[in-house]
């Protein structure tokens, strides 16, 4: 099967400091890839560079569109980049307040991306929004409530609904469960696993939590100091870490 995303020798420097250095990987349709590492290891920088939100210093990112055509993201115009972000991609931020429009209702948040795609039928928008609220386990009677009246976990689920409503092919997630308590985390991870399977999404997820990687990802990339130190099947990495840093990461997970 042909890859969906090809990252080759990607580097991003913030002036003299290294964000990420010489990263390469492929992502296949329907695959969920986790990027793990400690704070400051370049995980989010890599994610933003791959998602064309930051401009890489060197290297290339190629994406295969729905029509099978390969796009070189570095040479994409602003219009094409936005079209991709609107029609084929989704981005879930760590803080739902960054990804949501807080001054409009939950329903409008879910429907916004549909309206951006040109859907102009109110009843259909509303029905779709209600359906998606149900899918992310938010009571659909709260469709007209402001996201500010939602709990943190609900806001994150709302952001997931808002992102997935347009059925993207590729979703980028930046620590979607950080900052939530453990039981809420578990529910969201469960939900994500189900939706990713149902929709056949490809996803790149950044996390510092190895348990998240274990639960969701088939493959994992371990980063340290902006470089990839180890990559492979998640179970293999977590059960038989080769690199000293990975061994340290795995051994520092609290076990009960």
């Amino acid at each position: 099967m042909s890859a969906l995303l090809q990252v080759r020798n990607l580097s991003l420097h913030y002036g003299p400091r290294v964000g990420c250095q010489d990263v390469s990987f492929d992502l296949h349709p329907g695959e969920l890839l986790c990027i793990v590492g400690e704070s400051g290891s370049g995980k989010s920088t890599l994610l933003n560079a791959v998602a064309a939100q930051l401009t890489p210093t060197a290297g290339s990112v190629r994406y295969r569109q729905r029509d099978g055509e390969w796009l070189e993201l570095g040479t994409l115009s602003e219009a094409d980049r936005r079209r991709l972000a609107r029609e084929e991609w989704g981005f879930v931020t760590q803080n739902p307040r960054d990804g949501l429009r807080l001054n409009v209702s939950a329903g409008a948040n879910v429907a916004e991306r549909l309206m951006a795609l040109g859907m102009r039928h109110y009843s259909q928008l509303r029905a779709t929004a209600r359906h998606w609220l149900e899918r992310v386990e938010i009571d659909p009677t709260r469709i007209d409530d402001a996201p500010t009246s939602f709990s943190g976990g609900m806001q994150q689920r709302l952001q997931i609904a808002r992102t997935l409503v347009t059925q993207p092919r590729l979703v980028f997630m930046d620590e979607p469960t950080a900052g939530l308590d453990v039981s809420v985390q578990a529910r969201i991870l469960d939900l994500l696993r189900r939706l990713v399977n149902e929709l056949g999404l490809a996803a790149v997820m950044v996390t510092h939590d190895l348990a998240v990687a274990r639960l969701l990802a088939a493959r994992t990339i371990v980063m340290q100091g902006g470089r990839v130190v180890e990559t492979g099947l998640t179970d293999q990495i977590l059960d038989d870490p080769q690199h000293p840093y990975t061994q340290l990461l795995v051994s520092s997970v609290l076990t009960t």
Partner: protein
Amino acid sequence: MTPRYNFAFLDEDTKRMLRRALLKAVAIPGYQVPFGSREMPLPYGWGTGGIQVTAALLGPDDVLKVIDQGADDTTNAVNIRRFFSRVAGIATTEHTTDATLIQTRHRIPETSLREDQILIFQVPEPEPLRTLEPREAETRTLHALADYGLMHVKLYEDIAQYGHIATSYDYPVLVDGRFLTSPSPIPKFDNPKLDRSPALMLFGAGREKRLYAIPPYTSVESLAFDDHPFELQRWDHQCALCGSGDSYLDEVVVDDHGARMFVCSDTDYCSGRRVEAQA
């Protein structure tokens, strides 16, 4: 005319700058053209944008009409009319049909305009997306890419909260199928008059330093949803003075017991109809 001033108050270089910006605005219908807005002898919010456009267009033979909320006799309208008769010595009128230039705030006259007339709007906020997107750089990008899904978020919110599109003034329009544009705070009742109007429509926002235009016979479409089409306001009343049933009516409280009457907001249209009825 007071000779201490240059004709129509502004100096000739400023008028030239304004005319260049206006030409660009007419060439790109609905596009907001930046211009060097000048200090005017009235505060922002009183029509500094409109008054500069008027000053740039006035010639000695022009006849100026100024309306504020449809009325010729309100403070703003009287002052601006008097200002231009002082600094330009031009003739003014209250009759829509006699005017060559009409500066307006919040209304379009009921009487149909002609090709030889220009309507000049005072605009407080030229950016229709501003309440949804506060960043100017971002709204400019959205305009450049014609990425206007955001505007429907506002209309969606209206229907979700009130059951219908409750936006009743400054109702967003798409000009010439391309630029999302604010029609200025006119009631949506007046939106259909913008569509393929024979008269040139110019918009000036003094504080925001933007000009834009709707050239004659340009299509102007009010945004809506497929199942919630654009609708006009309706009244259960007729004008208490002239009996008009198809003009925009103001509700006026007439005593301390809550009695009300409905009268035309366009004073010239209303008095014209009354004169006609007496004749």
